[in-house]
């Protein structure tokens, strides 16, 4: 047994994200953005949701200033056009991602394991510099496993609630299952809010994780310290050439 990582401080290139995942991830970004943007254009025509506490409205979706700043008012038709165009690409992209994840075995790195629920809070505490010990990290840590699995479920939820609003008569069983037409619209809306919150945390975490991590979502590779133990003693002649 010999151990690498000595004076040479050698590196290894680690393949982290397959080509398919990188494309599907980056294609999803503008698609989800268009779905949310067009959704907000549609929502403006009947803006009934807010955050209420004891009958007092803390926040209204959306404040007039927000609508005016982004030029949202009176664009319902445009919103519907965009929503019902991009929905196909958003759904297909998501379905391809799920199929790829299952077939390639990527799901193993992605799905939470029983211990994830217990350990995920420690990831958050570590990130907040409250807990010093670094939680175990495979390709993803436990919090990432939960977050990335949740966001896929949210995508499925958006499609299901969306279908219930889109075809409430032909799919009346589905609409009823979701609590009726009005509830389905409410659920569809809050899933959108969840996506926005996910996006905010995701971008923040990516910034905190640093350039090398971000780059790996583009190149597929990350540079890691060469600590992989070798099972055979390295031959004396082994030289790494540039």
């Amino acid at each position, binding site marked *: 047994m010999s151990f690498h990582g000595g004076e*040479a401080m050698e590196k290894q290139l680690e393949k982290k994200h397959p080509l398919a995942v990188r494309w599907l991830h980056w294609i999803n970004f503008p698609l989800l953005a268009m779905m949310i943007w067009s959704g907000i254009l549609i929502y403006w*025509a009947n803006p009934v949701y807010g955050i209420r506490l004891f009958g007092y409205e803390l926040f209204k979706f959306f404040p007039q200033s927000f609508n005016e700043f982004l030029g949202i008012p009176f664009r319902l038709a445009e919103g519907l056009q965009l929503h019902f165009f991009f929905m196909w690409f958003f759904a297909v992209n998501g379905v391809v991602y799920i199929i790829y994840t299952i077939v390639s075995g990527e799901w193993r790195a992605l799905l939470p394991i029983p211990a994830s629920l217990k350990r995920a809070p420690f990831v958050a505490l570590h990130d907040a510099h409250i807990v010093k010990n670094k939680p175990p990290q495979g390709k993803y840590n436990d919090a990432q496993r939960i977050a990335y699995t949740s966001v896929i479920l949210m995508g499925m939820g958006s499609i299901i609630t969306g279908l219930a609003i889109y075809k409430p008569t032909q799919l009346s069983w589905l609409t009823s299952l979701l609590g009726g037409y009005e509830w389905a619209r409410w659920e569809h809306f809050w899933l959108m809010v969840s996506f926005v919150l996910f996006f905010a945390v995701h971008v923040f975490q990516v910034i905190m994780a640093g350039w090398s991590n971000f780059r790996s979502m583009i190149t597929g590779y990350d540079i890691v310290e060469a600590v992989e133990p070798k099972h055979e003693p390295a031959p004396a002649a082994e030289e790494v050439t540039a």
Partner: protein
Amino acid sequence: MSEDKEVLLEKVREFEARTGHTVDSYPGDPNNTASVLKEHRYLSEPISPENAKKQMSAMSRRGFFVGGAAALLGIFGWRWMPDETKTNLIRRTFEFNERVSQLFYSPRRLATEFPEARVTMPARFNGAEGLDEVVDLAAWRLNVSGLAGRTDDLVITLDDIKNLPRTEMITEFKCIEGWSTIVHWAGVRFSDFAAKYAPKNRDGSTGDVANRPQDLPRYVSMTTPDEKYYVAWDMPAILHPQTLLAYEMNGAPLTNEHGAPLRLASPTKYGIKQIKRIGRIEFTDERPRDYWGGPEYGYDWYAGH
């Protein structure tokens, strides 16, 4: 073997202490999620830091170039697309969605009906297009065009409509703006109306709504008496058992603002399609124009639920 693991672990800890770098995915670490789930790591041979940097830079350049080019293509492709192309793309998307919807459509699937207690009171009013003139209920007549065995319009009265089987339903009325209300409707199923006043089939024979709907003309066009509001319906949706020519709303004859004396009510399409104060009904095989679903406003011509 476990002894080897101990030795390795020790070396990892020593490495961590010496370099200040955390080994966060050492395969032998029992707490490692990667090893717990037998996650496979794809690692290159150990290489020099310079070599690693060089290889990464090359990959980065390629990745950012491809990504940037794709993003610019998307943004400027959309920005520089002529308006006409955009309009066509939107229209064709709606038509594609319509074909998919038709493919899965079944007249046997019904909208949920509600108990009387759920009816929204007072009924919500929205949209006065085509209702500018004061209606003279006594003088009102319904013109029906495209009927079997004649080339001129048939002119009928509200009593003729009321002589047909009465149907009531309490369904959800959905506005394309996103709100909905529950309404108690009473009227005549459009399919009963079309069974009594048979349309002319595409081949000129007499239409049989119940048994041979596939021979019927594909569309129905309806307009207000002043022709200022008009809607287009596809035959499958207008023959849906919950599509009514309604003359009562929430237990009372239709008020002016809700389309007296006769309007369309159906949970198979948005409110924009449920025309108030019908003046003329035409069976046609030519795709009719639609007020909101035309190019002027750009809503979905089909707008089907």
